[in-house]
């Protein structure tokens, strides 16, 4: 057994790539060694800014010899078959053996692979790993063609055992492996040789390099905490930053400084973000004031003046950065105090998506939707609309321009500065939430209304322009938006017919992107065919209109004819087709605008109620279909979400089959109750009993061609078990009906589960299909009662098993 040490020494590796590179090096090397027939006991990978290192312990000295026999074709087989076999085996005909077989004489290939020495295998695997390393981005340098994350300078590859250490010889693009490495770039730049992993790690430490990033992290954290503590302050922990900083240094030396008084008035988040993003500083809080008053920077070197020059330089850079931040903050406050009108105006020029209009268009849509949603979540409609109008204005602020991650939070500060009530300011901060499956869901009604409106507008918008997520591709984060909708609705117990909200949102979206029509209108009177074609071709790619145009024959005909040039032949037809197409577009927008008017009262009526009704018959189904598709996407995401919470897939399906499944809160109430019941033995058996009842009944109904739903009569009951079932069903119904009225599904399910014993007893004692037709019919009607009762909470037929 021997130990292997590999070090790939390069120019500075980006900090963010190091963790993944360690894992890749370990996996690719050990997989390669094992595949080639070696075994090992343990492997560990390490990284610093300048090196990737792998230590493998207990590596076998050679791979075992392998003998493989392959049976080939019959010796009388056609030459082609024999040739194919030879190719696959990599042998020539004279190397094959002939052996007697049941079916005659057959060729046999005996392939012997001798065992190989470890160094030979290591060299081969390592070269492959280096040449094919999966860096997220790699480069060439100088005259070479080798790719690495930055120029690779040396390869240390050493195999050691009790007898000593030996370099594993290999050469990759002129870089010859050896047993030397180098220490810290400035503190210990000389090369030195090593004899094994322990020697390597120890010598590196003497040469001012801590090999293990976890050790560097610990050292940084401990020293930073000590520095802060000594100054009566506390370090603000930041794991991501810690990992990044540990990837930037080989010899970490934390230094603490104070933030100049001028800047202490900036919001804490601004100080933290600026220091972290620009300079990779940790923040230090004064526990007495609660403010961020200091910072810790981590130098990569020790100096004669104990870092004084370094700290002074860093402080200077910080002052320049914070001067910028202060400038942004003060300018932004000026705009905020004036009511943020400047930003509102500015957002008109910012494109949200070229098919969905500007950010200002989008805000108008969200505001209308927030108003509509407000009553459903117990929010004041005026406040909800106001909050929606203000929530995204900070996108135009200088601070968010510099630090996009502060969006929303700055909105809160600026809305407060503008004198808005807390509910409005908080909605600016919270309306992006929740951003993932585990972060907090807003609960303030105004925030909930805006957050829902924001996400629903995004979903309907991208649905309308057919930019749905596919497979792993979700460039507009629509799955996250959908999860946000679910968590907002469920977290706040919101009760609403979601489908209506989706349809209205979709129609308003279409009214809102009417500007697209104006574009088209420009070409209407144009005589230039080229322009007409351009206009027509651009339309199907644009906006909500596309949806209508794709589904309407009038436009399709026009489009096809224009594209194919068919209209050259018959100008009359073309003109009439064109008119039909433009009439369609016209009436579509009138419909959308009029609906928006009816919903929000914001604009002016477009036509009479009569005309509107006619248009609705034509266009509404299009919106309904698209919204139903979106709802089923939300249902899919709900399944994923509930599955993570332990609710079975089939349980959700059983509840989705019930009416009102766009009321997600109701849906989840059903599912929770059903899941709980299924976890009891009675519940499990009830489902079996129900399915048995349902199967017998369905078969009888199919056979007899009638529906047995006339109500069973106890007077035809013959057995005690049958009579007992009547009594039990009556009892259950008196509990279930009021429970259902209160949506108390748990009680209803309990009452159903209590039916399990009487149903089982009934089936054991009673034969349904008796010769007595009256008794048989009565029993089938009894089964129908069971079915009806059992279907009140969920469609149990859809349960597995």
């Amino acid at each position, binding site marked *: 057994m021997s130990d292997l040490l590999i070090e790939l020494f390069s120019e500075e590796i*980006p900090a963010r790539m190091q963790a993944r590179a360690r894992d890749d090096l370990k996996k690719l090397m050990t997989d390669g060694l094992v595949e080639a027939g070696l075994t090992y006991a343990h492997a560990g990978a390490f990284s610093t800014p300048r090196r990737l290192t792998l230590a493998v312990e207990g590596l076998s000295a050679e791979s075992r010899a392998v003998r493989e026999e392959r049976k080939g074709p019959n010796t009388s087989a056609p030459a082609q078959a024999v040739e194919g076999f030879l190719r696959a085996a990599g042998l020539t005909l004279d190397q094959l053996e002939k052996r007697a077989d049941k079916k005659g004489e057959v060729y046999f290939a005996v392939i012997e692979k001798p065992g190989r020495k470890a160094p030979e295998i290591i060299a081969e695997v390592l070269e492959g790993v280096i040449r094919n390393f999966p860096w997220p981005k790699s480069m*060439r340098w*100088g005259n070479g063609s080798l790719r690495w994350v930055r120029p690779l300078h040396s390869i240390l590859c050493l195999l050691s055992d009790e007898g000593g250490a030996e370099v594993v010889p290999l050469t990759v693009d002129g870089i010859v492996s050896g047993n030397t490495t180098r220490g810290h770039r*400035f503190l210990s730049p000389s090369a030195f040789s090593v004899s094994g992993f322990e020697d390597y790690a120890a010598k590196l430490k003497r040469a001012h390099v801590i090999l293990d990033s976890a050790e560097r992290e610990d050292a940084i954290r401990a020293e930073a905490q000590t520095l802060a503590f000594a100054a009566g302050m506390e370090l603000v922990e930041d794991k991501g930053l810690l990992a990044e900083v540990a990837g930037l240094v080989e010899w970490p030396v934390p230094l603490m400084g104070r933030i100049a008084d001028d800047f202490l008035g900036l919001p804490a988040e601004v100080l933290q973000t600026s220091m972290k993003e620009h300079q990779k500083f940790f923040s230090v809080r004064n526990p007495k004031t609660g403010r961020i008053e200091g910072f810790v920077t981590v130098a990569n070197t020790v100096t004669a003046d104990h870092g004084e020059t370094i700290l002074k330089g860093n402080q*200077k850079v910080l002052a*320049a950065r914070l001067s910028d931040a202060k400038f942004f903050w003060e300018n932004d406050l000026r705009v905020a105090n004036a009511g943020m009108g400047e930003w509102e105006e500015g957002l008109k020029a910012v494109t949200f998506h070229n098919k969905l209009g500007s950010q200002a268009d989008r805000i108008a849509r969200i505001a209308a939707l927030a108003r509509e949603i407000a009553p459903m979540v117990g929010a004041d409609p005026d406040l909800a609309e106001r909050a929606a109008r203000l929530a995204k204005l900070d996108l135009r602020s200088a601070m968010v321009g510099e630090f996009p991650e502060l969006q929303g939070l700055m909105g809160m500060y600026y809305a407060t500065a503008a004198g808005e009530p807390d509910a409005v300011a908080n909605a600016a901060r919270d309306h992006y939430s929740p951003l993932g499956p585990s972060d907090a869901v807003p609960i303030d009604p105004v925030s909930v209304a805006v957050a829902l409106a924001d996400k629903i507008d995004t979903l309907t918008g991208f649905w309308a322009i057919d930019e749905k997520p596919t497979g792993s591709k979700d460039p507009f984060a629509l799955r996250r938006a959908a999860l946000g909708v679910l968590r907002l609705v469920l977290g706040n117990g919101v009760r609403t017919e979601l489908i209506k909200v989706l349809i209205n949102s979709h129609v308003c979206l279409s009214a809102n992107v009417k500007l697209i029509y104006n574009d088209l209108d420009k070409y209407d009177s144009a005589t230039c065919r080229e322009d007409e074609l351009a206009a027509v071709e651009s339309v199907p790619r644009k906006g909500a209109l596309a949806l209508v145009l794709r589904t309407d024959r009038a436009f399709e005909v026009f489009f096809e004819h224009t594209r194919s040039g068919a209209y050259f032949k018959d100008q009359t037809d073309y003109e009439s087709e064109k008119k039909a197409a433009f009439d369609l577009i016209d009436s579509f927008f009138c419909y959308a605008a009029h609906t928006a008017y009816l919903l929000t009262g914001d604009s002016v009526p477009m036509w009479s109620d009569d005309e509107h009704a006619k248009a609705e018959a034509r266009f509404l189904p299009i919106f309904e279909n698209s919204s139903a598709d979106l709802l089923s996407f939300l249902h899919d995401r709900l399944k994923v979400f509930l599955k993570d919470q332990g609710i079975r897939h089939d349980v959700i399906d059983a509840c989705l089959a019930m009416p009102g499944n766009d009321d997600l809160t109701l849906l989840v109430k059903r599912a929770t109750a059903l899941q709980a019941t299924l976890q009891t033995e009675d519940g499990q058996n009830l489902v079996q009993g129900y399915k048995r009842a349902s199967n017998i009944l369905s078969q009888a109904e199919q056979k007899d061609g009638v529906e047995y739903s006339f109500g069973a009569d106890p007077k035809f009951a013959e057995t005690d078990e049958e009579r007992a079932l009547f009594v039990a069903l009556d009892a259950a119904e008196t509990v279930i009906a009021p429970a259902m009225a209160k949506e108390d599904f748990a009680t209803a399910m309990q009452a159903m589960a209590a039916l399990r014993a009487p149903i089982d007893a009934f089936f054991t004692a009673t034969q349904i299909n008796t010769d007595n037709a009256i008794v048989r019919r009565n029993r089938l009607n009894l089964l129908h009662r069971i079915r009806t009762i059992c279907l009140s909470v969920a469609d149990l037929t859809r349960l597995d098993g």
Partner: protein
Amino acid sequence: MSDTPQSRPDLLAGQGAITTPRSFQEIILRLQSYWAARGCAILQPYDMEVGAGTFHPATTLRSLGTKPWAAAYVQPSRRPTDGRYGTNPNRLQHYYQYQVIIKPSPPDLQELYLGSLRAIGLDPALHDIRFVEDDWESPTLGAWGLGWEVWCDGMEVSQFTYFQQVGGHDCRPVSGELTYGLERLAMYVLGIDHVMTMPFNDPQSPIALSYGDIFRQTEEEYSRHNFDAASTDMLFQHFKDAEAECDRLLGFEPDDPKTKMRIIMAHPAYDQCIKASHLFNLLDARGVISVTERQAYIGRVRALAKKCADAFRMTEAGADAVDASV
């Protein structure tokens, strides 16, 4: 290996006295002599308005093809949107870059670079010098590379890039490019807080001149010009003209009927590309280019850069060596 520090004792800390320069121009002069001593041709600035030293044909065009190349130069650079009327401590619409370009990138380029910092008075034994990931990309030049921004005590003092592609062409061999933002670097070395107060020549000179003495007024004039006065109609027209002229020049037959020589006018065409790029920057500063149009304009400049790069590759200076087997 050739890049071990021992092989370059002249560059090691403590081996030569590190002294602090006294003026902006002394820093430039020291960089000039340092890189001259390392074998670079010291070129003069390109005589056109450019946004960065990279635009100099000595970098863009010469980074193409296989011919070895080593040059260093100061390049006055213009970024119209960065104008602050001379009031901002370190933001200017006209500033200087120091540019070094070496093809193929030598294995000890990092050490050579660190030597240049010592030459201008930054002692790595006293400062914290760091190479922090920064991928460089120039959408207008159709160029990208990998490298770092170099930090000195937390401040970015240089860009360090290994060119991978320029004008859509793979760089083979790869050029190493160093870009120093001279004002910012000099302010740090000299301990100056506002660029306008920085000594330009030796403060002990009979006529001592500060950066402000030379550039405050021009910063005011150009800021007003860039933001409010430049004729946008004219700029739009000139952009179109430059674009058309670039195309036209590249449309000529390589064989010149007058001299009977093969002359591809890659450089004159590239001048028009540089012009178009600067005109675009001016239009951008005037605020007349919308977000959506922006990408289209950048794409048009890139198309010119690409064509010029294509043309340069057909010339003697930009061609691949015939014997590429070595």
